[in-house]
């Protein structure tokens, strides 16, 4: 077993983990942060995307031990406690989800994209989110949601 500690959604968390434990399993099963789903076994789908030291990563595609000492934000840490953040509100407003399974990854990947590019074009949004799959074919409204969130976030500055 390996000892790891990390800041997760603003709270210091630690634990003993097997080296083979994936980060997503640590988040879901050890910390109870089940807002981050597991969608695939191939690293394609992006549903499990979280922010690791501010950058998007697929949490099924790294070991929990590799996140030792890092700062992690999951979908459950993107807004104030118990409330939705700006991007989540925009997804609600624009009906940017159907079944909702891909949504935590979409929103987290969008947060990563908008941190780097606050005013992306439609093409840049599609390119920026192409590591996140929506099987309800809902990309149109997802793009609209990110555009609205970008506008809201720029206006708030």
């Amino acid at each position, binding site marked *: 077993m390996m000892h790891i500690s990390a800041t997760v959604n603003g709270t210091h968390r630690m634990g003993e983990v097997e080296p*083979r434990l994936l980060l997503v*399993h640590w988040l879901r099963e050890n910390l109870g942060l089940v807002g981050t789903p597991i969608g695939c076994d191939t*690293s394609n789908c992006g549903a499990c995307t979280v922010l690791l030291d501010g950058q998007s*990563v697929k949490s099924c595609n*790294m070991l929990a031990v*590799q996140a030792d000492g890092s700062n992690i934000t999951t979908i459950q840490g993107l807004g104030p406690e118990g409330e939705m953040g700006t991007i989540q509100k925009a997804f609600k407003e624009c009906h940017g989800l159907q079944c909702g399974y891909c949504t935590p990854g979409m929103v987290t990947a969008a947060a*990563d994209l908008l941190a780097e590019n606050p005013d992306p074009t439609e093409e840049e949004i599609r390119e*920026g989110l192409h590591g*996140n799959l929506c099987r309800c074919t809902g990309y149109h409204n997802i793009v609209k949601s990110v555009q609205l969130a970008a506008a809201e976030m720029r206006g708030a500055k």
Partner: protein
Amino acid sequence: MIPSAFDYVRAGTVDEAVAALVAGGEDAKVLGGGQSLIPVLRLRLNNPSLIVDVSTVDEMRSIVDEGSSLLIGAAVTTDAVMKDAGVQADIPLLAITAATVADRAIRHRGTFGGSCAHADPAGDLPTVAQALDAEFVIAGPGGRRTVAAKDFFLDFFTTAVGPDEVLVAVRVPKLGAGWGVNYQKFQRTAQAWAIVGVAAAVKTEGGTITGARIALTNMGATPIRASSVEAALIGGPATIEAIKAASASAADGTKPTSDTHATADFRSHLARVHTARAVAKAAGI
């Protein structure tokens, strides 16, 4: 799936990594960004007894300007490579190709060195290393050695890095002034692997092509230099007609596979078409 159990060593230095690999024997595996290895572990295609994590080795996380080349640490992420000002200015072929790899999240973890060491024939970055005659700095129990790209990629997923060795860095020569670059990737869907890819760097002077470096992705077990195209281009005019004529030999000497995505004949066709496109765009026409 959950990977099989393994022991884990987080190496603090290259020497520690080599010592751990020597102790671990042939079942030990090096882990960098993990974007290729971790899916392999999860699908249980490989069950190493020991994982040696080099992703936090300081020496392997920097890009050093050596004057005529950049020494890129093997643990530098693809995202950091494509955004590095030195890479963008002096090795633009690497910067633009890195930007086509997988997606943002994968690029935040995956590394240039890891992609080369993994040596997937459909990988984009090994092709750039082959096109630019990169050198690979490898550390093992006997010390360090440097291997040229042409001797580094040996077969499908097989490189000159031995089981008790670590790829430390990749030395990529700067292109210099007057070169244009392009990477063409034919893929089925947005984040799919290249069915065929072509990396091209072309130097033109007064309407004449005076330098050409072209390499192909997924046209054989390893990235392949299109030497006959290079020879046919150099000294000729930078025109569409001349480029198309030279690109007709792009698939000569290659050994593409046939699979569910494309037959070998179709891959050969794609190599010719995309070589012409890559060279034309690199030449600015």
